[in-house]
């Protein structure tokens, strides 16, 4: 019996998210007295696969099959479910990201398992199996029991600390034997975001709202973002107006993020905006309106003109860095 954790790779590399997930899998496996198997699909070097052992993966199933590059939801789900059955998995963990969300529901049906998505941290108990997640778009928490014998979870990034827990890891080449007919998605074009910090990975996020007045005013924010190694975000009207790309839209109907630090400039803090950012550890607001609701959600704030504050912040960060 095992906990199966599906660790995606990005051009052959794992990310902090992957290690968080293996750490979580390992904590759950301990609670249940079972082992951890990681499943990797794609071309990942052996050393990289073995790095999962540092966080508690006893075994790594290594699937190398180019057909999966199309990320066909049906075929991927099939592969994950087959690996789960082979490993006698009682818990299957996927990321609460685009790929995880796409395949977890399918996997759950295949395995006759209950699904909870966006789980934060370890289960409250494993018998009965009770997990915690945010509901009503970050406005509340819920404790949910999964009644089936097998459980599928998608894990909310940044909700569990990486824990080192070195174990011996065996890498096993595995072929789930998915028929050609299962692959029906044909990729016509791929656009990868390069040279930028991905919003989903960013520890610090710099965000601008309608108060920034226009796309021509983003220079200061970008400079600040670059200095901090931050990802860039924006409110919905900003992306709707086309000032910034849709990829940067955060909130209830955009991306949900949980960085360590979220810096909001000229954002009023509408409830739908906060729905996507309130899991941030620290929120900073700069807004000229002292009544703006963003200050109720913020930990630190400046009532003032963003256009005056941003250059000062840039200077202060530069000073801090040289100090």
């Amino acid at each position: 019996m095992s906990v199966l954790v599906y660790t995606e790779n990005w051009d052959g590399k794992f990310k902090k998210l992957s290690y968080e997930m293996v750490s979580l899998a390992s904590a759950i496996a301990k609670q249940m007295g079972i082992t951890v198997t990681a499943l990797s699909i794609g071309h990942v070097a052996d050393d990289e696969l073995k790095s999962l052992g540092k966080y508690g993966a006893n075994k790594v199933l290594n699937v190398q099959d180019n057909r999966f590059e199309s990320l066909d939801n049906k075929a991927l789900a099939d592969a994950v479910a087959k690996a789960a059955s082979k490993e006698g998995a009682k818990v299957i963990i996927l990321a609460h990201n685009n790929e995880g969300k796409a395949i977890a529901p399918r996997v759950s049906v295949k395995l006759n398992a209950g699904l909870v998505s966006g789980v934060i941290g370890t289960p409250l108990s494993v018998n009965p199996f009770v997990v915690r997640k945010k509901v009503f778009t970050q406005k509340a928490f819920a404790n949910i029991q999964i009644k089936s014998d097998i459980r599928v979870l998608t894990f909310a990034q940044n909700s569990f600390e990486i824990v080192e827990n070195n174990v011996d890891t065996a890498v096993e080449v595995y072929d789930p034997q998915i028929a050609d007919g299962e692959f029906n998605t044909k990729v016509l074009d791929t656009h990868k975001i390069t040279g930028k910090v991905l919003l989903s990975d960013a520890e610090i996020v710099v965000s601008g709202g309608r108060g920034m007045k226009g796309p021509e005013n983003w220079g200061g924010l970008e400079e600040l973002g670059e200095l901090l190694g931050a990802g860039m975000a924006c409110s919905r009207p900003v992306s709707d107006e086309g000032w910034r790309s849709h990829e940067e839209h955060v909130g209830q109907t955009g991306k949900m993020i949980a960085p360590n630090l979220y810096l909001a400039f000229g954002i009023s803090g509408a409830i739908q905006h906060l729905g996507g950012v309130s899991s941030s550890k620290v929120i900073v607001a700069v807004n000229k309106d002292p009544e703006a609701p963003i200050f109720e959600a913020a930990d630190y704030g400046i009532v003032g003109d963003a256009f005056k504050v941003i250059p000062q912040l840039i200077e202060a960060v530069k000073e801090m860095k040289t100090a």
Partner: protein
Amino acid sequence: MKILVLISNVPDTTTKIRFTGDNKSFDTNGVQWIINPWDELALTRAMELKEAGAFETITVANVGTQITESTLRKALAVGADEAIRVDAVPQDAFFVASQLAKVAEGYDVILAGIEASDYNGAGVGGMLAELLGINSVSAVSGLEIENGALKVHRDIDGGSQVLSVPTPVVLIVQKGIAIEPRIPAMRGIMMARKKPLNVIAPVDAESKTEFLGFELPAPKAACKMVEEDNAKELIRLLHEEAKVL
């Protein structure tokens, strides 16, 4: 081609969330119900595609009790041609998907929202596709149809892609599929009253999960304010006190 748009009935996004009965259930008192924002965008795109000649009629479906009918009527007022309501309390994603599997057969394109804004389950669309044994594409941010062939835009982690995928298919949609949701016009509201809203009985299906209880987050400590001309102090606080820089 036939299109089905799944509609979830959710509290208005500005609703103050409260719980009753020892925090075991959501307090629906005074709640305004709306079409789940992503479903509303899905319906908007379905309308645009219908106007471009890709579909003749648009069907919407929901699993819910009587209270969801005003939301379905709204979908009809926006422009859907017929509505189906499976008369049951939606217990969990698997239960709902099992109900929808009975009504979704025979459609070429099924649009589901990426999640519902109440329980954020993100499960129904994918489960439905698996129950029907058909393809699904998630995180869909664009859909074009030409001569019956689908061109689907989706987000992947770290980028985006354009795909072709055969029908029947469940597309699990998000922002971008449409930008501004359509709102019903007076004429649409009048016409909606005459459009068919078929209520059908649920099938046996088990739920696999159960909500044990809810909690509101602890109130946040007051925001620490820094003067406008003292951004340096803010950086010091973030560095030394909050330790996030």
